[in-house]
């Protein structure tokens, strides 16, 4: 490497913001509107060129692997990809690990491991998109996650574990409960959704916990916690909605009613923590679950024509929306 790829950018960009505002005050109105501070534009150019450039290069590697070029010997393919992994770790080392460049290089390494494992499956004809591929991928990138301490890598780990959980239940469900005449295969969605909710919930808890040492440059931005929380809530709701459609009403109601209570309790807690986005997600899921439970009960009872059933469900949605609005206003006032 003839060029030192180390980046001197601090990851939160605070300095840039201060400089931008500081220099902006003496500029023309147009310059102020467009934020023409050269330093902040240089930083932007750095991130744009490097970010999109690296994304394109990674996409190129993935497409090349997927092409399955038969003229290349299998050991050459394996050697090239493993070599690329070594090079990207070396670049991260040169860039001093926790700079933007270093973190990006480690993230690229973590992503490149996927094509390498996919290549193994491709050469030795393993199962397509096997859950073990995603699980192994997620586990092997953990050390780089600890080194980089960067939210995108942790998000990648969570997504990979989610895909692994989905693929596991999709392909192994029958193998685990094979009794003929047992539950339909669609129940794998319930099992997979619940597992994904558990995975995301674990991530959510970890993302919420504060780093022990401030000097570790640990980056756990609010969006990571919010994304994992919404992932948890979304997956759990999805699993429950599917179980509502598949299982007998009494069984699914026995699961859904306690989970709505839990959801509301959590919404109250999140509201107190000023986590508006998570509160909104929890409330929306509770409202959807209640409405769908009403709709399924009406359908099971079969007393109303279809159009009236839809009107009633619409009304149920509207009433809950109103109640949620008043509650939020009330909570906000009592908080103040």
């Amino acid at each position, binding site marked *: 490497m003839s*060029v030192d790829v180390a980046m*001197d950018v601090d990851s939160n960009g605070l300095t840039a913001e201060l400089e931008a505002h500081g220099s902006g005050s003496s500029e023309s109105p147009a310059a102020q509107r467009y934020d*023409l501070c050269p330093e902040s534009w240089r930083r932007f150019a750095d991130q744009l*060129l490097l970010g999109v450039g690296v994304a394109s*290069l990674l*996409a190129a590697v993935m497409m090349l692997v997927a092409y*399955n070029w038969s003229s290349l010997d299998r050991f050459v393919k394996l050697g090239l990809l493993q070599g690329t992994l070594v090079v990207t770790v070396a670049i991260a080392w040169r860039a001093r690990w926790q700079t933007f460049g270093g973190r990006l290089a480690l993230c690229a390494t973590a992503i490149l491991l996927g094509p390498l494992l996919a290549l193994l499956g491709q050469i030795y004809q393993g199962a397509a998109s096997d859950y073990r591929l995603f699980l192994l991928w997620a586990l092997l990138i953990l050390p780089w996650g600890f080194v980089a301490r960067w939210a995108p890598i942790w998000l990648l780990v969570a997504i990979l574990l989610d895909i692994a959980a989905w693929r596991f239940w999709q392909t192994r469900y029958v193998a685990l409960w094979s009794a003929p005449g047992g539950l339909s295969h669609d129940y794998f969605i319930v099992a997979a959704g619940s597992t994904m909710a558990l995975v995301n919930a674990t991530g959510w808890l970890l993302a919420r916990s504060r780093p022990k040492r401030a000097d570790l440059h640990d980056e756990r931005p609010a969006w990571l916690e919010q994304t994992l929380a919404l992932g948890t809530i979304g997956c759990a709701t999805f699993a429950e909605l599917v179980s509502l459609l598949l299982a007998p009403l009494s069984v699914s109601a026995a699961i859904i009613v306690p989970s709505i209570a839990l959801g509301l309790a959590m919404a109250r807690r999140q509201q107190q923590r000023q986590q508006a986005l998570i509160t909104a997600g929890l409330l929306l899921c509770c409202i959807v679950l209640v409405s769908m439970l009403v709709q399924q009960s009406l359908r099971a009872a079969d007393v109303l024509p279809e159009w009236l059933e839809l*009107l009633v469900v619409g009304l149920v949605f509207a009433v809950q929306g109103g109640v949620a609005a008043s509650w939020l206003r009330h909570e906000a006032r009592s908080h103040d």
Partner: protein
Amino acid sequence: MTSPPSGAQQSAGSPVAAHWSLRLLMGVVGWLAATCVTGGLAILTFDVLELDHLVLLAAGIALFGLALYLRRVLLPRMIERPSKMALVQFALAIGMCGQMLAVGGAAELGDAGAPWTAFAMAIIAGWLYPDAAQRFLSPVIAGFALVAALRAHELTGGSSLAAVLGTLILPFFLRPTKSHNPLGDAQLPVGLGLAAMSLAMLLWSSFLPHQHGAPEDAAALLGAHQPRLLTLHLAGLTLLLLWRIRGLIPPDRRPAPDVQLICATALAALAAFTSSVPGITAAIGLLILARVRRSSALTVMATLFLFTFLLLFYYDLQLTLLDKAAICATAGLCLVGAWLYLRWRQRRSDTPSRSRQASERRRWVGGLATTGLLLTLVTVNTIVGAKEKLLREGATVLLELAPQDPRALLQGDYMQLRYRIAEDVWRAVQSDDLAASGALVLSVEPQGNIGRFIGLDDKAHDLESTAVRIRYRLGRKHELSLCGNTFFFEEGDAARYEVARYAELRVGETGDCILVGLKNAKLQRLGKQLETNRPVDSKLASQRKRGTDPR
């Protein structure tokens, strides 16, 4: 246009309740309620009362008028209460339902009736209805309606046209706000809506052009060059934007001429090399616009668009994966090359301010990263070693097939294999009440090595010398998986494997197996398959070596 303050500002009474996500929650719930109500009313009018479509059109317009009256006249006079926030969303939902009903009613006016009505209503609603959500959705609906209307008149290329129109108008709406702004509150939502519409149209024109026949005239010729013209247009707009920004910077503070030249050249080269793929240029242009406008919504939109575009590009069948890999690699090299130049240039002019970290900590971090790398390489090569051993020493077994085929997330094109013995195994599993995964026993013919299913392995008896044990797993629809039931091949080779009748496996003593390749009915190998130097004295393999290889 002076519009009343939007719902966002009105409900800003308390800090928490006014958070955008809570307003969005109210919106989504209001819209869900309104959708259910409209659905119920639609079923009532069509199926129960069987009303005329023109009545529906009139009812839709009336409903929209009512919403407009509520939002523009009644609601601004109300005092701030929680119910007002819900009413704002309810009025919005009624307005949307009115538009949907009107479009449904207009469907009877001919093929182009519904899309043109949707287009007109979207423009009117975006202009008159003072709500950010409506103003965001209006350009999106108008864009899709325009394409549908043009298609109803048998004109293709509407999606590209909508993308071009959207990107041309976009800059006027996304200019940083001046103190006296003629567009008022409408500026940002309409701008974001136009951006979303343009990106959606770009995806549509890039990946759906072959789903309808292009007319055999000059338009067809233009249609063939659509992606290139779009890329040229987008690159032109991006360079124009950068030129405008450059003009605003005082000459003494501008970047050095060579830096300007390199940035412009990198963008131009990127557009030229990826001319058949407008998405990458569009994402870069939008990211620059997002920076100018300092809008995180636009940044998120552009980033998500880039990922969606690359994913659809991967699954698209107009180019081979090799061509696509070359295009992406060139784009990456252009951008990373420009970045390297900028770094080098900066290092020459600046004295770098290295923020030294404690060397002890860096050593620890470096050790962890290297351990991770070593762990990865050892894991991968251990798997390779085990597979190669199986390939060298395993017994050869052929199994009869009934094949089918798609594309995997990361691994490319493959053929889904269905083994003929699957039904026998399923029956045996059912009758013996055994688990859906375990081991099965095959008898292998000395001539041709073709395997026949004998039964499930009960581990009580030793195997005969002509029998092998294989681990299996049964999936959905009695699908039998032995060593993975997929066969990966180079893109474009699908036809070669269509005549496959047998799968060739190597089976180890523990029941592990590996799929080596496919053979036709005459037991000839198809295409390339896993080759290795098999030792002559391999006991299981040599047992059935005679007369197996037809080459």
